[in-house]
């Protein structure tokens, strides 16, 4: 018998990208575009003697949540680290362009769900991957301008690093779990470049204090915090779908204000407990070790205060 507070449902962190889509959408509603049998694969991996994936680690298509149409893109974090690359990136960009262009038509959808799980750009095709990130960002903005929310769901093994971190922060709503991580340079990269004194990547508690789900949602880098089961992600996605997004000068001015304020308040802090102390949270040292239920009631009490992304 597994007690109630131990998760026994399918875990987002452990699931494959396909299993996440399966659990996220109404059963049987997913229609994949360029599915595995169409074999649209990376032309570059052979040069490195690496096996390709039938879907290049990016699954895109449309489906429904509670009967409402949505577009979905999911990165497979276990394949090449869920990286942005030529084909995988183009699939995502194409989907976003399709959403933007079909907004308001019969083919329009109510939201885009981005199941990011990525270490960033796939270095074997670095330039194409970098371009894919940039094109994705531009396409996300077009989707948002067309009035369709873009919701990032973060809780996979690879997190959302590098360009994935930038893409996340361009979405209109970010859902994250405790295991989720968002960052630009990964801890290993910082350690390699700046030394272990700057960032000890093996101190995983530190890694999560800096990049992890709880810190991100408390600081405003994410908008919803969920338990790590697939069902909770589905619920959060369904709710976020109804949030009306806006993307305008005013949005970014408010974001400018929000980010300026953050830098002013916390710019001299070295670790997140210092931030939580300034922010007046109870037991700043114990945030990471609270139970999920306690953390969520803390969040509910503190309220989530970011209106601009």
């Amino acid at each position, binding site marked *: 018998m597994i007690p109630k507070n131990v998760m026994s449902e399918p875990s987002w962190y452990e699931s*494959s*990208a*396909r299993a996440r889509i399966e659990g996220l959408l109404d059963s*049987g509603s997913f229609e994949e575009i360029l*599915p*595995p*049998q169409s074999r649209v694969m990376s032309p570059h991996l*052979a040069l490195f*003697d*690496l*096996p*390709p*994936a*039938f879907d290049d*680690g990016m699954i895109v298509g449309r489906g429904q949540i509670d009967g409402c149409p949505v577009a979905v893109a999911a990165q*497979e974090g*276990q*394949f*090449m680290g869920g990286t942005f690359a030529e084909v995988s990136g183009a699939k995502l960009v194409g989907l976003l362009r399709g959403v933007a262009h079909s907004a308001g038509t019969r083919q329009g959808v109510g939201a885009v769900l981005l199941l990011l799980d990525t270490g960033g750009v796939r270095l074997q095709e670095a330039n194409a991957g970098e371009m894919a990130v940039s094109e994705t960002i531009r396409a996300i903005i077009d989707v948002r301008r067309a009035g369709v929310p873009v919701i990032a769901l973060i809780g996979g093994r690879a997190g959302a690093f590098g360009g994935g971190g930038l893409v996340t922060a361009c979405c209109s709503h970010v859902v994250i779990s405790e295991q989720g991580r968002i960052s630009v340079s990964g801890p290993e990269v910082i350690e390699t470049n700046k030394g272990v004194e700057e960032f000890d990547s093996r101190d995983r508690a530190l890694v999560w204090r800096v990049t992890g789900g709880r810190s991100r949602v408390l600081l405003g880098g994410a908008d919803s915090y969920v338990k790590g089961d697939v069902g909770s992600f589905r619920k959060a996605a369904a709710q976020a779908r109804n949030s009306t997004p806006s993307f305008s000068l005013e949005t970014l001015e408010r974001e400018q204000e929000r980010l300026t304020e953050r830098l002013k308040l916390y710019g001299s802090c070295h670790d997140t407990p210092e931030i939580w102390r300034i922010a007046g949270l109870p037991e700043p040292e114990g945030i990471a070790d609270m139970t999920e239920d306690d953390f969520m009631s803390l969040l509910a009490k503190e309220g989530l205060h970011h209106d601009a992304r």
Partner: protein
Amino acid sequence: MEKFTIQAQAKEPLGGERSEAVTGVVASGNLEILFERNKDSLVVTVEVMTASHGYKPVWDAVIRDFVERVSPGGMHISIHDNGARPDTVLLRLMQGARLMEAQS
């Protein structure tokens, strides 16, 4: 990459309605398998692309056992392998066959 194709004759066609299914992912020590259905055939075709060189005899043995256990007649099976061990290969093949046997 090493590439080869293994063919076998099954006793019966694989049941079920699904026209295709995927199991596994191309992660280290894992593999991805795409099943496609070729109706009215008892032939099993397995196309392997693998990062581990020199294991064709092991693949032959695994696929022989798989065909014996499941009788996956009419299956066209494509594999991208990233160094999966034989037991993982067999497990994924069985998982794929189970998916294909689903009624819709």
